[in-house]
């Protein structure tokens, strides 16, 4: 008997209309856990590196995490993996909500989509009954609207629906997959779904998910719940309110937005408004939010309530997740009530709330600079809010200028030309980043921004405070009950970290400590993404209920496969290395490992080179950021090594040419 997983994947070939239920190899869980890990393995094995993201040979994988469907609190992530039309690299975007557990209850760990349907269809998975159904009547419908229509026509109020809106159908490079209060938004996976002619995947399941050592596993769950309650009563002191608790940032609950509005940048990631947050703004925004928010909403089996049902004046009700509240507001230099309104339309269209507002702000900057003119933007309204709606409508329809903007800032800048490239200043690996511009280089964040394979800072940071605390006393207070650290030396790194002076950024934490801190933060994300745990209860917040010390016991009692800290860390490292390998095979190089070019005003090319050199070494990669033969062998990734040797990515007598950091290149 298989525990925690069901042991079956669904293989769907949309070109041939073929459906197959395929048993999986039980040894994979021990090596790759599940979720992101096993998704990556499938992509490595089955999608050749020269495959175009819009080729029928590209796979679109909806993977559940290993613990989804078990009683583990917050184990509800669906990890969607494919190749991104925007970056050309592996994309894995995750969504919470209710879809992944439902798929497990239907009896499957993954749905693997290949091929392309000649006409728009949706997939209906009802336990053992799986059918591909016509979706031509859903063409152009909103993502949420689609979900409602499907539930209604199937008479299945309990079915969970993951769907795309118009943006996905039109292959907008930042189209999302929406699912109730959640979405998998980053890197354009909605476009791949649209390219495959797949409007939605609908799931209903009424089977059981079993655990191997139930009582032991249940005790772990009870402990986690108990600690969540305790943390709720003990918010972290010395950090902004938004970072003091558990969960995805509590944007729906919290009114105090001083930190985001005065530290993050507005417009096209340009303007810092240090004086923005006044008493009047606070009062006004609080009222707006209270009026708009109908109810706080949680994902499956989680108490954190990170989303909300929103009813903004004049628009239908919809569900919002954390930070989209501010992204449109700030990009449009507007107000919170605008934010609540436009997100309704954006959610129905199904677009990424990080990228979309930035693309639109970028377009408006080009307009101000005269690079785009009235000829390019015929009939665009005069006010910022109106312009945002106008641009959004055109982007998702790929109409006029919208057709270019729909490719994201990086590609659009190059298509537009005339110096537009200069306005692309906030992307990494062709992907838009959080709008944040700071002064002094932070070595920890330098490595995370540069090397994160998710190309998104929130998906690699966490656990370790983002900035040093002002006084030693505060730090001592903080480390007292910080049992989540893998080793006590991490407490010391934090204790010794000063806001100013010798022990401050960029030279402290030391290079060695920086590597360890980054590696720890990243490792916890890789574990979550394989287990299907929400980062909001695990890798993202300070002092989370899940950590490297309790996770091995949780996984062991769930699966019956024994894990200790070393073995779990090794599995995370294996997955992480495999992802790097997949991207290396698609051309990823050291030169791509860099932060947004003006993220920090003060850069330190020499230090940055050393940081990358040492971090690569720490990771078992060579100077070009390619996993070495030795480390591949040690991780049981001999098949990757063989492939690299065959392709000449690695050679038998490896003497890597010296690396070069982007900062250095820029200087030249």
């Amino acid at each position: 008997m298989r525990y925690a997983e069901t042991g079956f994947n669904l293989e769907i070939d949309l070109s041939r209309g073929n459906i197959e239920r395929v048993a999986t190899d039980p040894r994979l869980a021990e090596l790759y856990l599940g979720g992101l890990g096993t998704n990556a393995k499938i992509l490595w094995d089955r999608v050749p590196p020269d495959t175009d993201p819009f080729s029928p040979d590209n796979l679109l994988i909806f993977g559940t995490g290993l613990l989804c469907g078990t009683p583990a609190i917050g184990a509800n992530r669906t990890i969607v993996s494919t190749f991104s039309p925007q970056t050309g690299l592996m994309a894995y975007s995750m969504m919470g909500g209710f879809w992944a557990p439902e798929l497990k209850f239907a009896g499957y760990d993954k749905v693997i989509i290949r091929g392309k349907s000649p006409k728009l269809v949706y997939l209906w998975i009802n336990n053992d009954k799986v059918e591909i159904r016509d979706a031509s009547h859903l063409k152009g419908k909103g993502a949420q609207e689609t979900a409602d229509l499907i539930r209604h026509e199937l008479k299945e109020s309990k079915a969970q629906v993951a769907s795309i809106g118009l943006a996905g159908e039109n292959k907008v490079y930042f189209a999302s997959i929406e699912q109730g209060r959640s979405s998998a938004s980053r890197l354009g996976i909605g476009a791949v779904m649209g390219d495959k002619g797949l409007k939605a995947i609908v799931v209903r399941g009424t089977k059981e998910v079993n655990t191997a050592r139930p009582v032991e596993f249940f005790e772990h769950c009870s402990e986690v719940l108990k600690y969540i309650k305790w943390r709720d009563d003990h918010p972290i002191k010395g950090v902004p309110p938004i970072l003091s608790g558990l969960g995805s940032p509590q944007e729906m609950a919290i009114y105090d937005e001083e930190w985001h509005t005065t530290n993050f940048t507005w417009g096209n990631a340009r303007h810092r408004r240090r004086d923005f947050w006044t008493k009047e703004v606070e009062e006004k925004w609080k009222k707006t939010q209270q009026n708009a928010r109908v109810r706080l909403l949680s994902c499956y089996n989680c108490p954190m309530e990170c989303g909300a049902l929103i009813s903004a004046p004049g628009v239908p009700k919809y569900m919002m997740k954390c930070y989209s509240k501010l992204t449109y507001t700030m990009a449009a230099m507007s107000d919170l009530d605008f934010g609540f309104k436009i997100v309704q339309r954006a959610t129905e269209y199904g677009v990424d709330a990080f990228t979309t507002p930035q693309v639109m702000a970028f377009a408006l900057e080009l307009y101000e600079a005269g690079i785009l003119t009235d000829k390019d933007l015929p009939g665009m309204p005069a006010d910022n809010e109106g312009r945002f709606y106008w641009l959004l409508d055109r982007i998702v329809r790929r109409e006029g200028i919208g057709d270019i903007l729909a490719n994201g800032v990086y590609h659009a800048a190059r298509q537009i030309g005339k110096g537009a490239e200069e306005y692309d200043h906030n992307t990494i690996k062709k992907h838009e980043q959080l709008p944040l511009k700071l002064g002094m280089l932070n070595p920890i964040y330098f490595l995370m921004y540069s090397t994160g394979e998710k190309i998104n800072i929130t998906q690699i940071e966490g656990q370790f405070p983002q900035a040093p605390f002002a006084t030693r006393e505060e730090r001592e207070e903080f480390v007292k009950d910080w049992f989540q650290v893998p080793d006590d030396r991490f407490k010391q790194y934090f204790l010794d970290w000063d806001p100013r002076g010798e022990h401050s950024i960029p030279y402290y934490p030391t290079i060695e400590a920086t590597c360890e801190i980054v590696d720890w933060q990243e490792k916890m994300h890789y574990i979550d993404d394989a287990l299907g745990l929400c980062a909001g209860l695990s890798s993202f917040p300070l002092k989370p209920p899940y950590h490297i010390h309790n996770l091995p016991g949780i996984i062991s009692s769930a699966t019956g496969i024994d894990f200790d800290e070393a073995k779990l860390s090794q599995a995370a490292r294996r997955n992480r290395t495999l992802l790097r390998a997949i991207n290396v095979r698609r051309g990823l190089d050291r030169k791509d490992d860099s932060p947004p070019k003006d993220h920090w005003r003060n850069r330190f090319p020499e230090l940055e080179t050393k940081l990358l050199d040492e971090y690569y070494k720490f990771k078992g990669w060579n100077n070009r950021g390619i996993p070495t033969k030795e480390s591949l062998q040690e991780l049981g990734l001999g098949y990757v090594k063989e492939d690299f040797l065959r392709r000449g990515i690695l050679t038998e007598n490896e003497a890597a040419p010296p690396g070069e950091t982007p900062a250095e290149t820029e200087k030249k």
Partner: protein
Amino acid sequence: MAGEKKKKIVKVIKIDTDKCNGCRACEVACAIFHSKPQYSGNNPAKSRIAVLRDPIKDIFVPVYAGEYTASECTGRNKYVIDGREFDECDWCKASCPSRSLFKEPDSGLPLKCDMCESDPPLEEPMCVQWCLSDALTYEEREVEVDEKEEEKKKPGEMELGLESLVDKYGMEKLLDAIARMSRGD
């Protein structure tokens, strides 16, 4: 009927639908507590509490499985509360032929909330323990009851199941089947 009066503890779960965030942790807790061996399997379809959710309409109603009934109601009334339209069925606890709710998914046998009765007893039913939003809270109230009434035994899970099988196949067929099974043919 002037029977003897006797003190009895009534267990009450208070459901505050305004506080429900739709997480379905209560369903998980119930399903694993009642699975055999205990905690071994999670299947919300076997839970004796179900959260009826229609998030966009702001409908979140945790309902407990109550009595089994052989026939469905004749009418279908609707309630409008604060502008939200509820089906009468949304509030109904019955394991009833009109819907799949509160039935074992495989056998179709009815499920009923037993307040997590167990030995040793739980401090609070499992669903209440797992609901951190306080949508479900537990109270014990002392009331006086008629002793005679109390003596009538509550039907157990097996009786409930049998009753539903009688309704489905008729007493005769069922007895036949049991006789055949006990003969081992």
